[in-house]
């Protein structure tokens, strides 16, 4: 598939992607064609209503659900928006913390990042809100995923109270990784979403581990790699929020939807 076609919304690609791909394969785009396709992708994002809802459901791997279940998923979607806000606060908190005043004590100097801590705490709380949305969305049978999410929901905000307590951070990150992988294994998440969390999370954790070893005792110099790790963790909030945004179709009376949390019909 052409790289430009990937700019189209998922539902749009599900409905028109193969045709567009075939067309592009037979007719080289050139510059004007590429610009036209780019504009088409922007238009598709602006007008998602143009795609038949049935195609949206197929793209999201969702089958029609009962009105009650639909309302639950709408709530979960709003919780996903909170997770996105958390990403902003996460970055903001660490930027504020990294620019705090330098304090000199008996062991040398360090940045007093206290001003950023409320942002970090709120970011972790909002991630927990997003994960609660995931708990609403994923089926009960995905037990390992639910346990992973629960661990992160509890450990994350507690870690936000004291980000220097690394075991709590490790527990939160481990819970998130377990959740992402299990959600993928259970067919609730695509492999792309799972990898978008697992990869950066493990990468960020590796950076922290390396930095703590390489800059042992140098509390000022260790900030730069720490900030890199902070940025690496940001996709967690974004993916948790994004995977809550698609809604299935509302079941028509008599079509057999039973409101179970098993809407996903394909990964």
């Amino acid at each position, binding site marked *: 598939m052409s790289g430009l076609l990937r700019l189209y919304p998922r539902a749009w690609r599900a409905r028109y992607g*193969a*045709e*567009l791909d075939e*067309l*592009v394969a037979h*007719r080289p785009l050139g510059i004007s064609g590429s610009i036209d396709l780019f504009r*088409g992708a922007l238009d598709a994002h602006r007008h998602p209503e143009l795609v038949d809802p049935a195609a949206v459901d197929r793209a999201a791997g969702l089958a029609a659900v009962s009105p009650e279940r639909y309302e639950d998923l709408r709530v979960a979607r709003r919780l996903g928006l909170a997770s996105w806000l958390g990403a902003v606060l996460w970055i903001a908190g660490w930027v504020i913390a990294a620019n705090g005043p330098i304090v000199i004590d008996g062991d040398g100097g360090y940045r007093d990042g206290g001003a950023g801590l409320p942002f970090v705490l709120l970011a972790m709380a909002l991630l927990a809100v997003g994960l609660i949305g995931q708990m609403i969305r994923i089926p009960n049978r995905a037990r390992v995923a639910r346990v992973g999410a629960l661990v992160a929901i509890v450990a994350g905000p507690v870690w936000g109270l004291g980000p220097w307590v690394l075991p709590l951070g490790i527990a939160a990150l481990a819970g998130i990784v377990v959740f992402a992988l299990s959600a993928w294994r259970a067919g609730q998440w695509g492999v792309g979403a799972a990898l978008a969390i697992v990869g950066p999370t493990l990468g960020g954790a590796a950076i922290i581990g390396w930095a703590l070893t390489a800059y042992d005792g140098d509390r000022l110099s260790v900030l730069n790699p720490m900030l890199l790790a902070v940025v690496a963790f940001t996709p967690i909030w974004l993916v948790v929020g994004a995977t809550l945004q698609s809604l299935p179709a509302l079941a028509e009376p008599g079509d057999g939807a039973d409101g179970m949390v098993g809407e996903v019909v394909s990964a």
Partner: protein
Amino acid sequence: MNRGLTEFGRFAEPTLYILVSLSDGPKHGYAMMTDVEAVTGEPLGPGTLYGALARLERRGMIEALEPENRRRPYKLTALGATTLRTQLEGLAGFTRLGLARLGGSAG
């Protein structure tokens, strides 16, 4: 109800071209693109083509048929044919008026 093509905004002209292209039978995207280019002399970009197709399909003016390999043909619906006829008659009237005035002023 025939609401015309003006509601399609910048896609109004491409949708008219597509409806004309489909007026002699079903076509898939590539065939429409080459047909429109042959008729108008201007290439129709793939993003514009499928933006217009989606709008026409959503409004029920065209209908997707079963795909042939990866190509999906589209056909004109009754609503699409009515809309096209109305548009072309409007354009024809406008053309007649313009030519009449031009002829009057030239004479």
